[in-house]
């Protein structure tokens, strides 16, 4: 299969994506970040929230209202999802770059790793969950994982796992990629 259909589908796919969640989340997080910075409050937590919210918006962009109509198209659902992800992940990373530069936070807090880890985990769950609620379930993964990280107390495996998206984002992305490859025929 050639890449020509995907290249030609890029612009209409970009038009078909619902950008409101990503734009809304970006604007809100930027506002909160600016307020936090000017009032000299810690911005690391704001950036952590931003990574979960942006990841949620990125996974949510997989939702395709015309998925049923396109279900039997030669360009498979995985390729169409890959196109959507590419189109939405690039602006999300640009937004992240803006947030990181505005925050003046420590280099550890401004790494895009946690954003990518949460997004990858969400996409993997969306791919493995049955078609109808898949994207919804996948999009909730970043938020749920972030909430667990904030609420699970003490130490231990559960507590460690709740923080893996921050502490071991490369490993999370790698596992999610393996899950994606294994589920690509679904």
């Amino acid at each position: 299969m050639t890449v020509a259909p995907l290249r030609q589908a890029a612009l209409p796919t970009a038009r078909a994506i619902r950008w409101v969640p990503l734009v809304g989340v970006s604007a809100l997080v930027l506002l909160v970040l600016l307020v936090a910075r000017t009032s000299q409050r810690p911005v690391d937590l704001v950036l952590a929230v931003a990574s979960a919210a942006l990841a949620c918006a990125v996974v949510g962009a997989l939702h395709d209202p015309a998925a049923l109509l396109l279900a039997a198209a030669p360009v498979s659902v995985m390729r169409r999802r890959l196109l959507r992800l590419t189109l939405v992940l690039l602006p999300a990373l640009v937004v992240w770059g803006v947030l990181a530069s505005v925050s003046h936070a420590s280099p550890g807090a401004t790494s895009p790793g946690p954003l990518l880890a949460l997004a990858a985990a969400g996409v993997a769950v969306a791919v493995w969950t049955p078609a109808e609620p898949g994207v919804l379930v996948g999009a909730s993964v970043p938020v749920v994982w972030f909430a667990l990280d904030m609420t699970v107390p003490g130490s231990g495996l559960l507590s460690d796992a709740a923080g893996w998206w921050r502490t071991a984002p490369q490993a999370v992305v790698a596992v999610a990629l393996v899950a994606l490859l294994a589920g690509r025929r679904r």
Partner: protein
Amino acid sequence: MTIVHDRAGTVIRTTGLRKSFRGVRAVRDVELDLGGGVIGLLGPNGAGKTTLLRMLATVLAPDTGELRLLGRDPRRPAERLEIRRRLGYLPQAPSLYGGFTVLEMVDYVAVLKEQTDPAARRRDATRVLESVGLGDVRHRKVRTLSGGMRQRVALAAALLGTPELLVLDEPATGLDPEQRIELRSLLSETARRGTVVLSTHNTSEVAALCQRVLVMRDGQIHYDGTPQGLRTTAEGRVWEADEPDPRAARSWMTAEGRYRHVGVPPDGVEPAPPTLEDGYLFVSRGTR
């Protein structure tokens, strides 16, 4: 049971096809050998029609059983791709992109059907839109269209590329009587070049259009033959009277004010000539 002879060789062959959802069997042991022409799939809600059509459209993989479409095995990715290049699929109640124009929507589907020459693609999109009677509204936004018009946009998308196998899940939904007749004309023309499999609740649609009819109930095919053959399954099981008859399995008042009864007729009554709907009632409700 009457089987219509293949006109263009076997296009769809299934053996022991099964599909379950959370333990509920949606399709059970379906055996089909379908050739060209228009094939109607009748059955009550929940009979398994949509599940079967989704499998025939390569959208859903069967749990067990053999399925061959256009001589290929859809389980193999390379062969599935070959099938999809020759297939048109209209799902039940498809959603579209409201912000696109009609032409943009169909053009987008054409791109995903690997039509990469923009000029040829635009010509094909225009052709299918004109064939479904939407040529004049091709620059209108999809969100401004009526339900019937949206259905026709989706149908146009399924017709792109002149598919050899067209799988349509309730294509007449939302269409007015005139549009239904236009649809019949369009589908019978399409069936001259290939195979059209459509599901419907409308027996008059089947009578007017289909050379072969399948009736599904509880995930199984209970009838496979001609519409004429389906009608004759109710031969001698239909009678009319001036009063309701509690012995009938089904009764309703006709436009003439008489009661039409379906079931085992009591002694001495004169059977009425059955319609396709009577035959369908017998098979789909298990009224035999």
